[in-house]
């Protein structure tokens, strides 16, 4: 009964959503404000990855908010789980030697890969968030493989905070020297399609990368290690 009622509700809701979407023909050209990003993006930012240009520069404020959201989530999670007496259901066994060795080998490589991704965020697909996640996955790998591995919480929090502050400070630098918050005219834009180009975009993405990496590592650690050893 409840099931069918729900299905009927959802069908009606789906109908309205379909009605809206069907008015936008699929795969056809319809530009809005993003035409400006596409046409002027290279000229104004020198970043080849237009998505990155938008994410970090045109809509950089959203990204600052996004970083804040992630920070908030990590904080809230740590906040809540610190009081949690979450029981561990399964016994943990020490991983095999192969896994251990492999993870130890992969760990630095993964971190390096993550760094590569966010350093090249303005040139290739990917950026701070993706790079940060890769770094976190390295940490996760170690956590799973090594019973005793425990990332330094203080260091993580410090990196996380400093990276966040760097983002805001870059914004304020723009306000002071460039006339507006997060303005991308305080350092030379450089040449198109070079590593050192696109002004503050790579700087911000590096900061974001560090922040996301440390945040997600902290988050995963918090989740895995919540259990109060009895």
């Amino acid at each position, binding site marked *: 009964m409840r099931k069918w009622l729900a299905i009927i509700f959802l069908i009606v809701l789906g109908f309205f959503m379909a009605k809206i979407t069907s008015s936008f023909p699929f795969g056809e050209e319809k530009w809005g404000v993003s035409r400006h990003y596409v046409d002027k993006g290279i000229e104004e930012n020198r970043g080849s990855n237009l998505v990155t240009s938008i994410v970090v520069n045109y809509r950089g404020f959203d990204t600052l908010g996004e970083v804040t959201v992630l920070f908030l989530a990590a904080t809230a999670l740590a906040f809540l789980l610190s009081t949690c007496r979450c029981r561990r*259901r399964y016994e943990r066994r020490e991983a095999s030697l192969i896994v251990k060795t492999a993870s130890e080998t992969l760990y630095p490589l993964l971190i390096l890969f993550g760094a590569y991704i966010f350093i090249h965020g303005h040139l290739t697909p990917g950026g701070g968030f993706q790079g940060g996640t890769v770094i976190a996955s390295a940490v996760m790998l170690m956590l799973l493989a090594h019973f005793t591995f425990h990332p330094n919480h203080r260091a993580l929090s410090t990196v996380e905070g400093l990276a966040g502050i760097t983002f805001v400070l870059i914004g304020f630098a723009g306000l002071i020297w460039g006339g507006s918050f997060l303005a991308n005219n305080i350092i030379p834009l450089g040449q198109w399609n070079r590593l050192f180009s696109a002004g503050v975009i790579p700087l911000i993405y590096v900061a974001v990368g560090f922040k996301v990496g440390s945040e997600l590592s902290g988050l995963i650690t918090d*989740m895995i290690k919540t259990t109060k050893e009895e």
Partner: protein
Amino acid sequence: MILEYFMLFLLFLMLGLAIYAVETKDLLASVVAAGFVSLVASIVYLYLQAPDVAMTEAAIGAGLTTLIFIIAIRKTERYEK
């Protein structure tokens, strides 16, 4: 053309996995299925010329989300009553 049919297949796969994720009583299986939905979605993003999003979805949506779900399930219960 083949690519389009493949996409259609992927979309069906995605929906099938989603329904399985919702209906199965095994939460772990459900989470893994949901992770696969994200993974399929990231392939779809590639087709839709969104490599950035594809990467993010693969890393965050399929990877991280699934991971934290699995941790959470390990700390709670695996089977829905």
